[in-house]
Structure formats: structure tokens, C-alpha cells
């Protein structure tokens, strides 16, 4: 005789693999993730319906799983970026101007967003100090907090936190190393006293 209750309890079926992804992406609660080649080497890019949410070089996160694990939102690996997004990122990285790109900074504090927005006003070929950003926000004493916010920039290179340097003219720290920050500034034609 079949044990009815036992069999019913074991009727669980694993849903199709795509179901979670489709559900989360449908309400824009998660991002798609793909690798993109660039002048800075291969990059992981994540994006939502609203815009780019993350960028990390593959030398920092070697696998897509590592990138997704560190990402602030749920992420789902897809084959490639949409061609228009790929083109716009390519253009922005080559020119140092992120025109036409939308950034989705949901999940960050309003202060972090303000810092990153101020950072985006620094034109390619120039640099500003942490104190300058703090002053732009009307909080001249918040230099340290600005440094913290920039260190958490989820979209480096495209949101140019590398253009924010120490007030003594030295390049200061960078998520991907001071050498890379120095190289980025030199490529953009910035010469600092500390360089």
C-alpha cells in the first residue's frame, strides 16, 4: 500500500531554472551581468532597466559568480550586453565622457549618490580634491565621508572617482591600486604635483 502522506510530501518539483531570473528581472529587483572587453581589460558590467549598476575589472573579480556575490543587487549572468549599451560604454571609456549613459545608483545612500553625482561633473583632463567635492555638497567638513563614498563607487571608470585626488596633489588611494589611478590620470592628460 502506498504511503499517501509520504508521497504527497515528496512531490516537490524543482522549478525551471529561468523562473527566478525572469521573476526578479520583471520587477527590476535584480540586474543582468555580462563581460565586456575594454581598453582597461575585460570588465564585468551589470545593468538594470534604469541604467548601469556596476562595473568591476575581471582582475578584481575573476569570475562572474564573484562579481555577483559582491554586487549590491541580485545578478543574473547573460551572454552579452545589448549592442547599444556596449557601444555607449565603449565610447565613454575611450573619450572619458559618459554622455548618453544612465546610472542606476539604487541601494546607495543619498549622500553617496550626491558624492558620485558631483564626481561626474569633473571633466576629463582635470582633477579635484576630496575637499572640493565636500564643498560642492555644502559640507566642507565631510572630506573623510567623501573619501568613504568614493571608495564604494560601484561604477568606477564611468563615474570618474579616479579624478578625485588628495589636496596635496598626490593621487591618493584607488580601489584598483594607486598605479592604475595614476595611469588613468596620465592618459587623460592630468599632471599633478605629486606625480
Amino acid at each position, binding site marked *: 500500500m502506498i504511503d499517501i502522506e509520504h508521497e504527497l510530501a515528496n512531490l516537490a518539483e524543482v522549478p525551471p531554472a529561468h*523562473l527566478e531570473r525572469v521573476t*526578479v528581472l520583471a520587477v527590476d529587483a535584480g540586474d543582468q551581468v555580462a563581460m565586456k572587453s575594454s581598453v582597461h581589460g575585460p570588465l564585468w558590467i551589470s545593468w538594470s532597466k534604469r541604467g548601469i549598476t556596476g562595473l568591476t575589472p575581471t582582475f578584481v573579480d575573476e569570475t562572474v559568480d564573484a562579481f555577483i556575490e559582491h554586487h549590491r*543587487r*541580485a545578478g543574473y549572468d547573460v551572454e552579452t550586453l545589448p549592442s547599444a549599451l556596449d557601444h555607449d560604454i565603449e565610447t565613454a571609456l575611450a573619450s572619458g565622457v559618459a554622455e548618453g549613459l544612465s546610472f542606476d545608483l539604487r541601494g546607495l545612500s543619498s549622500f553617496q549618490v550626491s558624492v558620485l553625482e558631483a564626481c561626474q561633473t569633473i571633466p576629463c583632463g582635470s582633477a579635484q580634491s576630496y575637499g572640493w567635492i565636500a564643498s560642492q555638497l555644502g559640507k566642507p567638513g565631510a572630506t573623510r565621508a567623501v573619501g568613504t563614498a568614493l571608495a564604494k563607487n*560601484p561604477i568606477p571608470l564611468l563615474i570618474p572617482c579616479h579624478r578625485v585626488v588628495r589636496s596635496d596633489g598626490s593621487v591618493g588611494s584607488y580601489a584598483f591600486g594607486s598605479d592604475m589611478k595614476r595611469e588613468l590620470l596620465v592618459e587623460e592628460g592630468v599632471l599633478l604635483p605629486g606625480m
Partner: protein
Amino acid sequence: MFGPWFRNFSIDCNETIPQPVLLGMNLNAPSTDREIKQALVTHRDAGFTMLVVRFQPGIYSGARRLTHGHEDAEEVAQETFLRAYRALGGYDDRRISNLKLSGWLWTIAINLCRDRASGRRRPIAIDTRLAASGADAPPIDAAAWNERLARLSTDQRTAVVLRHVADLSIADISEIVGRPQGTVRADISRGLDHLRDVLAREETP
């Protein structure tokens, strides 16, 4: 699928970066109701993803037994969470904290199952997949169970599936289906009796 949203970058001021609310939260690991509700309050999108990871497989499994096939079950399992997400937008923190997650989701799912069960009278799809029943036990014939459950009344089938497939309490089922607990108990008891009769007839040569 989820984790800390930043690394421990060294920064100029040598400050310790504050810990994010969800630091170390791994969506692949089972989350408790409390963790999910906390996340829904502080980071709704992250909490929603945790909700989907935790409850969608169960909703799908139950919907497989209460609708006409895997397409219906997929639709129910997706639409349930889309409706839940929209509803969350109108809930304040207190209401979210007081949610009984499983019962709330199943209330939505049961209505969707009923719509599909009554709206489209297509035959139950032949399901040749066998559910795993444990390492040593023989596989369970899911298709046969679909056919057996289809012989019950809608109320009995719903109660039996919610109790024995979805593992919900009598109290939760009572709230979900809007029927008294005694009635739910009777539905389950009569449903199981009916299934025993069906099985006895199957075993009679």
C-alpha cells in the same frame, strides 16, 4: 546571488567602512522569515529576491498539483511574486514586519490557481517526470498523483495540497482559503480518504 556590495577598499582616511545591513547575506542560503522581512523593509529589491529564492519553488510545486500543467504552474509561480512585489509598494514597515510570508504568498497563489483551474478546462498534461523521493526510495510517479488529485473536489484538493505538499499548518490554510479550521480538517480528511479509495481501486486487478 547576493552579497556585500563593496570590498574593504583601503581609502585615504583609513576609516573603517561601515557594515552594510545585508553584509554576508547569501541568497543561496535559506533565509528566515525574519531576515527576509528585515530586508524587505531596508532593501526591498534584495528582500524580494530572497523571498523568491525561498518561496517560489514551493509555490511552483503546489501549483503543479492545483493547475493543469507546468505552464500554468510557471505562470502562477511568477504572477504570485509580481503581485506580491506590487503590494509591498503600498505596505508600511509595520505591515511588512507583521506579514506571515508563506500564508500571504499562498493566498495570492491560490486565487491564481483557481482562476486557471476554472478558466481553462484543458486536460491535465501527461507528466512523465518522476519526483525524487529520497536516496533509497523508488521515484514517485508525479503524473499519477496529478490524476489522483484531479478526482478530488477543488476544496479537498486545495486543502490536501496545501497541507501535505506545501506543508502549511491548518491555521494557515484556514486563512488562505477563507474557511474555518474544522472545515479545512474535514476537507483534508475526506480528501485523503478519497485518495485511499482511488489507490485501492488502482491496486485491484
